[in-house]
């Protein structure tokens, strides 16, 4: 269990580092939220490890370093966990493409929640290209799932 937690913390730290590197194509920011990506990976990999409060707590730490308001990432991550957990038993996730769609929808909902919080507190809309980040997240997920260490299936 401790070893598992160590791996979890290290992967979160790497994700935090990756978050600081910008992926830009044609001046459009395509950087997905790597921390959320890692959390969702662990949500599938070891469901016993992650809980809604862990998602919320990690969101709170992210808020302290990068948020605009304390609680926006925390709320977003908690909502993501809730949506993911609520629908995971209700939706068929038989093949990997269904799963990719599922992950895409989780990311999209995260972005919509984040956008709603930002629109509410300072009336600012970053443009439709903002939603492309969900697509990059799915592409990165798909690319990484080719590697053995990121395999979820046994």
């Amino acid at each position, binding site marked *: 269990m401790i070893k598992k937690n160590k791996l979890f913390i290290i992967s979160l730290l790497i994700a935090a580092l990756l978050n600081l590197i910008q992926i830009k194509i044609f001046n459009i920011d395509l950087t997905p939220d790597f921390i959320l990506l890692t959390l969702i990976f662990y949500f*599938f990999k070891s*469901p016993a490890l992650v809980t*809604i409060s862990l998602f919320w707590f990690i969101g709170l730490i992210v808020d302290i370093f*990068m948020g605009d308001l304390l609680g926006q990432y925390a709320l977003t991550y908690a909502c993501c966990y809730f949506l993911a957990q*609520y629908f995971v038993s209700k939706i068929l996730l038989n093949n990997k493409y269904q799963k990719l769609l599922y992950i895409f929808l989780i990311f999209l909902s995260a972005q919509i929640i984040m956008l709603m919080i930002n629109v509410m507190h300072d009336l600012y809309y970053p443009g439709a290209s903002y939603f492309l*980040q969900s697509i990059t997240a799915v592409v990165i997920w798909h690319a990484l799932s080719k590697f053995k260490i990121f395999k979820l299936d046994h």
Partner: protein
Amino acid sequence: MIKSHERSSKLFNKGPSLLSKFLLIFFISIVLMGFDFRFHYLKDIRQATNFLSKPFHVALNFPNTIYTFTTQHFSNQSHLIHENEQLKLDIDRLKADLQRLEFLDQENNQLKNLLEVKNLKKFKTEAVSIIYSRFDPFNQKIIIDGGQNKNFQAGQPVIDALGLVGQISNVFPETSEVTLLIDKKMSVPIQIQRNGLRAITNGNGQNEMISLSYLPNSVDVIQGDILRTSGIDTIYPEGLAVAEIVEINNDPKFPFAKIICKPIASIRNHSHLLVVMPTGNLNNSIPFKNDQKK
């Protein structure tokens, strides 16, 4: 796929249900955000915990450090000689320019004295390097090295060799946060170089452009006009290049002209910037209330 046995074990969980946990967390988050919106305590928390982000800065700069170390170590003599010659040529050229500039400066000051106009103030700058830009599509901010240790204050302008880049919005012990010119909350008082018209720029936030607001449709601007800081607010020194007008849309349907400008400073392509050191106290003159107390 999902391990069904692990999930099913949660089915008989004796703790509170997922929905009730979620509602509690939702409520706590909303309360936290509401209080932060009102009292801005996130800034203080960030000040206190900023030292924790230092390992990240070191790790991010590591490839750069390795690169500079190896290139310095292995750069051959002929390359250095060539570079040295080039630099000498540059210095000669710049010296010649400077002579002319000094003459013009003096002449300008004399003429201003004759007209009894206040002379242009010279300003000191401090070189800094960029550590990283913040991951947040809603804010255009970068982190530079140097903060309270270099006596930086919130509100100081940040420039590069070409023009204005932004303004320091938050100062930490060893780093500072710079809000870029293109951030949605950033406004700069400017003057059009050609005709001296004064206006205020606003960041767009989404594309790398800024706009001029509240100018009537009949305003005298043309494509290619250079905008410079007017120096009215006492924060930005007078005459810094800010942007160039690229698009004017004076549709009579709207009360104001829509003027899009492109920043002159290459905002994204730098590793080094200059921070303009203040001549007076900036405490009373921070123009945008981004992370400041409202």
